[in-house]
């Protein structure tokens, strides 16, 4: 089956093409996910709308209370951009642990989110920052919290004619941020599991906790039990020791070639405890 690849000249053109071909069309950004599926014959689309030329959508913009990221921002830019790495060190960490230089130079944030893999590394940190995703179609625009964007592996709530244009990421001044990715080697590895935390602390009290995990559910998961377990509590060894139960209440990892359910559970429990210990250490150091 022949596939058409159309280069969109600008956003309007891209939206036009998506509206025209509906469910038969897919946006093509860096192609680091899409081309693999195409080659493997696992792509239903008939038209690929290349958005690679829409350079207007590649940006990291700082506003007073937030940072705006364009859909075509390359993963490599998340590492090097001074604003992103200053405001969101855990986000920059996720970008650094992502793939290899070649893939980071091609792969985009919009593609990482649009691909809707439970293993997408940039997503858990963005969930913990409270990021929203902005969608655009000929019919208009809308936005939603990023954790609500995913429906299942490879499935999102974007309508066939809608495209991700960007992300709004609220700044988290003074928050303790954490990201850890687990794989069997140091680079170019799909996560076995990942964990992100963003904690607003007041002395040794957790005012607000936002926690997310990768590869622990069919979608990147916001861990609401862990969040409510931690929120308003005093951060101490007792709290840390008890987080295990809350984590197990949130996550539902599966056995697969990358790892067993039990191993993934242990990984995110250990990572969560580790993050909390790190947070405790950082407030004690600051005091």
């Amino acid at each position, binding site marked *: 089956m022949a596939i058409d690849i159309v280069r969109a000249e600008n956003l309007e053109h891209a939206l036009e093409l998506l509206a025209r071909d509906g469910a038969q069309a897919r946006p093509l950004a860096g192609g680091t996910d899409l081309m693999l599926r195409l080659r493997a014959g696992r792509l239903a689309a008939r038209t690929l709308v290349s958005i690679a030329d829409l350079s207007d959508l590649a940006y990291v913009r700082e506003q007073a209370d937030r940072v705006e990221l364009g859909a075509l921002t390359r993963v490599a830019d998340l590492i090097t951009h001074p604003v992103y790495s200053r405001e969101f060190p855990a986000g920059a960490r996720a970008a650094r642990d992502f793939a290899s230089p070649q893939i980071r130079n091609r792969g985009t944030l919009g593609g990482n989110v649009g691909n809707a893999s439970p293993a997408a590394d940039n997503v858990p940190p963005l969930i913990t920052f409270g990021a929203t995703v902005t969608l655009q179609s000929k019919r208009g625009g809308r936005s939603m919290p990023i954790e609500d964007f995913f429906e299942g592996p490879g499935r999102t709530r974007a309508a066939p004619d809608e495209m991700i244009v960007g992300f709004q990421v609220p700044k988290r001044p003074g928050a303790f941020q954490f990201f850890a990715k687990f794989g*069997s080697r*140091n680079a170019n590895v799909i996560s076995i599991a990942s964990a992100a935390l963003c904690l607003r602390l007041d002395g040794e009290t957790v005012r607000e906790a936002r926690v997310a995990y990768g590869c622990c559910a069919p979608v990147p998961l916001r861990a609401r039990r862990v969040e409510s377990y931690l929120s308003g509590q005093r951060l101490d060894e007792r709290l840390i020791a008890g987080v295990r139960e809350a984590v197990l209440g949130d996550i539902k990892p599966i056995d697969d070639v990358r790892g*067993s359910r039990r191993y993934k559970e242990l990984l995110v429990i250990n990572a969560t405890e580790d993050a909390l210990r790190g947070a405790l250490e950082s407030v004690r150091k600051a005091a």
Partner: protein
Amino acid sequence: MGETLRNIGTRARRVDALEKVTGRARYVDDLELVGMLHLKALTSAHAHAELLSIDTRAAESMPGVFAVVTGKDVPGENQIGVQIADQPLLASGKVRQMSDRIALVAADTAEHAEAAVRAIKVEYRPLPVITHTDEALAPGAVKIHENGNVMTKKQVIRGDVEQGFAAAAAIVEDVYEVNYQEHAYLEPNGCIAIPEPDGGVTIHASAQAPFYIQKAVARVLGVDYARVRVIQATTGGGFGGKEDYPSEPSACAAVLAMRTGRPVKFVYDRAQDLAWSTKRHRMKVTNKIGADGEGRITAAQVRIDCDAGGYTGLSAIVSERSNSTAFGPYRTPTARVDTYVVYTNNLFGGAYRGFGTPQTTFAMEAQMDELAARLGLSPAEIRRRNILGPGDETTTCQKLTESVPGIETFEAALARSGYEQKRREFEAFNQTSRWLKKGIGIGACMYGGGLHAGGQFLEGSGALVHLRPDGSVLVSIGGTELGQGAFTVAAQCAAETLGVALEHVRVTPSSTDFVTDSGPTVASRTTVMSGNAVIDAARQLKGRILEAACELYGVPADEIELREGQVLKRDGTRLGSLKELANTAFAVKKVNLSAQGWYAPPRKTWDNARGNGDAYSSYCFAMQVAEVEVDLRSGRTRVVRVTAAHDVGQVINRTLIEGQIEGGVVQGVGYALMEDLKLDQGRCLNPSFTDYLIPTTLDVPEVDIVLIEQPHSAGPFGAKGIGEPSLIPAAAAVANAVSEAVGYRFRRLPLTPERVLMSLEEAGKLR
């Protein structure tokens, strides 16, 4: 020699460096021929089944299809087994592993061939799938071959082990199991078969052993060896994976080339290569050793269960190396080895750098640590007390005579790594560190260079050297260039012997038309075998032109020296150029400026029943020390440093040797920590580099290399092999370091983060 070596022990640039780094080198898949067809294979849907029917009618009438063949269409013998005739080229009657080919399609495009493959209908009657050697050996197990599931049994008997164990103060006995390892060469298997007008065929293949392909193709076509020309295409890595296996795709392509009268290309994609080609064998190793109160081994016993997969392939030979050298570099006054090579329905086991020894080395080296702990000795000390030296006998009762620097190599590795001190430091560090644990471990190996006594009918290698009238030199060897640098070594040997500048030596692609059957490029034998053959040819030529020079310059031949393209008197006076001399020798004196060289080591004696005799012509020692950090939160191991001390006889090319050692260590690290093929009912679940992980550059430890040079008289300029010894001890060293770091003995490889963490969790070592 007596003269200073100009081209030996240098860092000469590889002869193929530029073409490879610029991308100009042409690999099989880069070759396009007029009228060329593309071959695709249909492989089995079951790991074990009776084949009831194959219906190719629909496929035959598909667009672009030129031919569809099954087993009955093979013109010669439908048989590919190199050692035992147990493997049809195309399945007949039964399938025994997932990679069994049912039918082949040749079409004008790869897509058309693929579509036709999908249109072939096959009926099977599934049989129980045997997934482990224990199942295969269990009473009443379904028979994979008519003669049962034990393909062959080998043994070594040395003295009376029972008496040896009776004299022991401590005995350790345990079961070790290792998983497959995939070669992961950059270039998947590929070949082109071109039908020749004279009824023969030319094969261009990515391969290590053109002579194997020649025999296999001649057999399936029913033609003379002389009509099968095999040319080694530029080959993107082999590591043993392209020893016997390329005979299979080559024979397939040859059958279709003869059938269609057109060139046929058969190139695998990565998933096919991973799922179909041979692997390092899964083995179960039951190792029992005993030592006296001083830590001196009194008895060593091992049982090896080698999982061959559905066919023999090279398994019987691979396991002979496991069998003959199961106890590494140690003295074993009494010993008993029982090796069972067992059919299963798993992946096809074959040659892989190290050839059956990384598995037994992992077990033996772990056992040495266990025995040391039992006796209150350090891991270093127990090894020191047992390492073989000159005059000692190996397990197979072979006396070691020349170039036996085992202890020197061992001490060099310990000293350079600061082993004892680091071990104490790490122990102290681990007392206080909660999550991060450090460990240091030793891996030791003694490797027999060249082919085993049992395979010595293949042991001999040729070379063809031409001196051209302009003083340039053309070399052909029977060995192959796999990326290891064999052509550079051959060129250096020719340049050194003939006194030609290296840049005027060209090495041709290896071809069966140029030299005699030289055996395979395996067993770390090519520097020694092809190097010696080149030297033999070059010496003949040198003798002839010195004779001509003697007449031309009126100087006695033994007064003349050839150096870097110049003809000199011993005192350094210049007589002329090699160019002038070669031209005169050729044009005026009618000297034959071509010479065939040959090298074969002395015959070895071998008693198969007792596994006694001269297993290998010579041995080299490889001693490695690995330092690791294990993170107890994830189970992840980072290999920080590997100190690699190697006994190499004489360095021919320092850069190449370092490359071999670094590469071998990295493959060993991958084997130890991450490379993990997963199977379900004989089917490979992760045939891709997304999920079969090999080390990346960011996983490579610092590799600190120490070279021990004690020349061996049989080696070219004294050199011994390095290809495999570089890999063999690495996994054992890493595994010992991990076990020491976390205080828990691991008896399986690989030590994936999951295996480490879950084992410790189950052993109650985490909280």
